[in-house]
């Protein structure tokens, strides 16, 4: 750990992962950090589990690409990944903000309960799978099976969605600006209501991405899978 010149609490504490271990970094961000508000991580080099389970109002900047589960379980912190993220970025986030300037691999924001995940590039398959209340804004496309079984929260997709969007969706809502290759079982395109327009406008503003809300369609649950239908004969 190296403190850059300046008063503690102003300049970021710097970790260089080409010299220090992820375990050292995570031990530090889990410790009592009354005097630290900012952390910078250099040379992440695709390592796994960078800045996971942070529970403090820190600003963490990561200068490069992260591997699996970057900023997973985040609570309170703002984590900025200046690069690409591996599978499961911000998985199970509780609150705070995680931002990826490049692309994110599969299962971005999986089962996240709260907070905002912003991905400026594309997101891979299963983005927002089993989402439980967080918001996700994707500047590019999302891969197949995104929002699978998503229960609560909102996903804004500025590009296209691949196959099976919103399969077995519960009460989460997906807004898509581009094309939807196919919808999953029980997902349907629904009319945009005034509160949807407000939601898209607010989320895009929070993400710092500019598109008119009227360009988005709403995808929600048709709620046909909520009740067992013996006559369906496993055909949905």
């Amino acid at each position, binding site marked *: 750990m190296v403190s850059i010149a300046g008063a503690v609490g102003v300049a970021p504490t710097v970790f260089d992962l080409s010299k220090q271990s992820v375990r050292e970094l995570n031990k530090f961000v889990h410790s009592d950090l009354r005097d630290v508000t900012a952390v910078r991580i250099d040379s992440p080099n695709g390592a796994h589990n960078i800045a996971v389970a942070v529970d403090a109002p820190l600003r963490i900047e990561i200068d490069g*690409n992260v591997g699996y589960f970057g900023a997973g379980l985040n609570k309170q912190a703002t984590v900025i990944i200046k690069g*690409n993220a591996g599978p499961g970025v911000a998985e199970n986030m509780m609150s705070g903000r995680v931002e990826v300037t490049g692309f994110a691999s599969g299962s971005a924001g999986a089962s996240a309960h709260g907070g905002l995940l912003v991905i400026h590039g594309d997101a891979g398959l299963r983005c927002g799978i089993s989402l439980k209340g967080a918001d996700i804004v994707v500047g590019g496309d999302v891969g197949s099976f995104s929002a699978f079984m998503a229960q609560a929260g909102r996903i804004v997709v500025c590009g296209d969605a691949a196959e099976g969007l919103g399969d077995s969706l519960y009460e989460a809502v997906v807004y898509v600006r581009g094309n939807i290759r196919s919808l999953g079982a029980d997902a349907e395109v629904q009319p945009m209501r005034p509160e949807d327009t407000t939601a898209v406008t607010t989320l895009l503003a929070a993400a710092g991405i500019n598109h008119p809300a009227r360009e988005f369609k709403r995808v929600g649950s048709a709620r046909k899978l909520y009740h067992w239908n013996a006559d369906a004969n496993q055909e949905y």
Partner: protein
Amino acid sequence: MCGIVGLLVKKLELRERLGELMVPMLIGMTERGPDSSGMAVFTEPVTGMRRKLSLYFADPAFDWKHAEGVLSERYDDVSLTVEANHAILTTTSEPAALRAWLPTEYPGMRVLSVGRSIDLYKDVGLPTEVAKRYHFGGMRGTHLVGHTRMATESAVTPENAHPYTAGEDWCLVHNGSLANPGSIQRKLEKLGVHFESDCDTEGACRYIHWRLEEGDTLEQALEKAFEDFDGFFTFLMGTRNKLALVRDPFACKPAVVAETDDYVAIASEFRSLAHLPDVRHARVFEPKPAEVYSWSV
């Protein structure tokens, strides 16, 4: 879980450094595959009627020098380069005859690959140990296909390590597993294809090679593979002048590509690419599911 790595250099001077650039890539995939690893390196092709055969014999005390003498009496223009328990045999004789004769003369000897360009090394052990044992760092060539294995479908043995080969100058490595390797094997055995291990990947390698021999393009061969393979996979394949990559339609297994004017590098994860020269300015992307990517020398 397994790790795959591939590297194709675009500049002549980098061919000298192919192995040196690759070793950290392979070691970077240790956690994904600590039990065995291997590498197929494609060199400048041998000329004329010559072929190279990569041989493996488990016993470290095996007398390769004596074997070279025996081979020279029987076959034409034989030379042997020994690397631990592997050797590269070069000859102008017909490879099929050697393939049949070698295991009868030396029971337990295996022919790992045949071709004009391919050299193949694979064995059990940590990637760092295997790389050291066969001096991967000094390997030269145009492109290579490497693998680190964490066995799920079959035992940890040298023959179950990857890469797998079929025919000439063709190899494949696999991250994932197939649920129907038996039916793939039975289908191919009826057509006269011979199997040498009990690893699911061998079926995939021989299946795609069979389709290519039948005249399919790689895209057509893989379309058929999507229908016949029940399982999940990222396959990285090497031919004399190409690297090709495909992920299953559900993209169950990862892959990342980094491309610059100097090289194209492929790995299961970015951490195997992080050390590459100027990777910060590389075009880095994740291959899309069920899409075939290929790069030529």
